[in-house]
């Protein structure tokens, strides 16, 4: 859709300033673009390349390696059903089939109203709460076909808006601009030998 907004450019510059080398900010900036638009557009990648003094191809090269960056629009809610070993043992595959049938889309598809995208995912570190589902990366443990129906209804009715922000929003806590920032990452200042208590 779009380049980063003025507000996000400001935030991007602040993020870049936290790293000794600017390219380290690439993944955080791709997340920022995805938060703004719900996906990562070509325009956004070109803009990020400008901000980091990279080529657009370098930005695409990194973006295309990582599962979370969606280079085409996805639904407002990205439903990730885990079918890896612990979830498989407790019905993850059947749950995925159920969600696909219920939403009327194949795995990897998006509902015509743009509300839901469905994905089969690898282990999401919720193995003791299997079978696990993430919606926009928010966890829903021990999901049954019945509770999945309820979950989809609640999401569609907006009843989970406080728990599940739109796709792309990860942390709702903004990194602070610390007043006590040491800023020594580039200098490599070692600790004075013999301890530091004054």
């Amino acid at each position: 859709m779009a380049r980063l907004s003025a507000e996000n450019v400001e935030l991007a510059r602040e993020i870049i300033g936290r790293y000794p080398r600017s390219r380290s900010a690439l993944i955080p900036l791709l997340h920022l673009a995805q938060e703004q638009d719900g996906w990562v557009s070509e325009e956004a990648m070109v803009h990020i390349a400008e901000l980091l003094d990279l080529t657009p191809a370098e930005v695409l090269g990194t973006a295309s390696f990582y599962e979370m960056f969606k280079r085409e629009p996805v639904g407002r809610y990205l439903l990730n059903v885990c079918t890896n070993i612990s979830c498989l043992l407790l019905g993850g595959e059947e749950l995925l089939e159920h969600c696909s049938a219920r939403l009327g889309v194949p795995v990897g598809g998006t509902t015509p109203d743009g509300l839901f995208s469905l994905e089969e995912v690898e282990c999401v570190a919720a193995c003791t709460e299997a079978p696990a589902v993430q919606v926009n990366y928010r966890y829903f443990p021990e999901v049954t076909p019945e509770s999945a129906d309820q979950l989809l209804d609640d999401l569609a009715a907006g009843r989970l808006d406080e728990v599940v922000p739109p796709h792309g929003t990860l942390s709702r806590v903004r990194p602070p601009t610390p007043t006590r920032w040491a800023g020594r990452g580039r200098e490599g200042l070692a600790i004075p030998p013999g301890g530091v208590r004054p």
Partner: protein
Amino acid sequence: MTVSDVAPIVSARRDDPAALTIDGYLASGGYEGLRAALARTPAEVLDEVKAAQLLGRGGAGFPAGQKWGFLPPGKTPYYLVVNGDESEPGTCKDRVLLERDPHQLVEGVLICAYAIGAAQAFIYIRGEMPLAHERVLTAVAEAYERGLAGRNIDGTDFSVDVVVHWGAGAYIVGEETALIESLEGRRGMPRLKPPYFPAAIGLYQQPTVVNNVETLSNLPWILRHGAAAFTALGTEKAHGTRLFAISGHVRRPGVYEVEYGTTTFRDVIYDERYAGGLGDGRELKAFIPGGASAPWLFPEHLDLPLDPSVVGPAGSMLGSGAIVVMDDTTDVVKAALRLVRFYAHESCGKCTPCREGTTWLATILSRIVRGGGKADDLELMLDVADNISPPPFPRAGWADRGIEPIAFPYRRTTICDLGPSVVSPLRSAIERFRPEFDAYLALALDPARTGVPVEVNRGR
């Protein structure tokens, strides 16, 4: 049955929401470990951690203090990178620490940064864990506000910045050199070895220590109570405690902290204080002892202690502390296929044996499960596996058949361990449960047959 009752070290605050705030954390002894560290020289802190013989809790189990000691003197800046990219199937213990006791990790990061003289620390958190990210970010911000991070920490000349970094979905980034590539804004592909440790050449080509979340979360306790108290727990080679995630066909799946090396698989799988055993009338078929990459173990191995120096020679590994239990309803062919598909999906593509091998294994095993297998497919798969990990491949011994164990680790034709890891579930399942594979192969030869041996358990 012996189950140890030692007080938890890293999960003591997991059920205390007050510990999420710095005041609650301080009230429970928080940042005392950091203050104890700052009262000594960095070299003394390093010696303390070396004396504690703290083994890395990420998977490889390398001693943390020794890893720090590899940093070449004078080649500053040094960096500290925290590996919070927990993605090994079956593993969910770092998530507990990140979400439930973020200050403990931040304190551990600061202690390590002080000991090694790091110019900056980066906490790399898996992208799919926004709650963990929010909690750790909040903890870091609070630490800055209270003068416990950033410039002149706790009124000393020690200064270090802590940056919380995002992952974006790639299992391979858990490999420490791939993690560094990712932190540099690149595709997360492992670097060529040698150097074997990023302590020689790491982030921005500078000496770098990469440690796991649980490893660093042990440091506040070690600095508060001393290395001697730590080594008093556990066995001669495995000290302290360790988190184990027990999942699959058990009554009470969960993340449990147990004394290292003294507890057995039988304890944590069957004892009421832990996973509480299998479902009614169900029997154990196999279990994965240390994450998806570990060769499988079987009922006759239940009395092995959770001690890497025992489990390694016995033919597997404790890896990332993930025990996955499969009962007698498990279709091990489908279970193996799911894990093989995982490695095929997550192979970064850098090494040919892994990129091609995992993909072909997934293709061949898929056709077997669909009923289209060919007579020599099992031999074909084992041949592909040998090209990724030259034999002999580690495996558990079967005393009743006179088969000796082959000790861990595996050999490899690849840069990292992802490739050989695909062989673990495949070989384990084929060697132990060959008749089940043969039954699938028979389907292809006689399509009218429907007799696939067992169905995947569909309920609890």
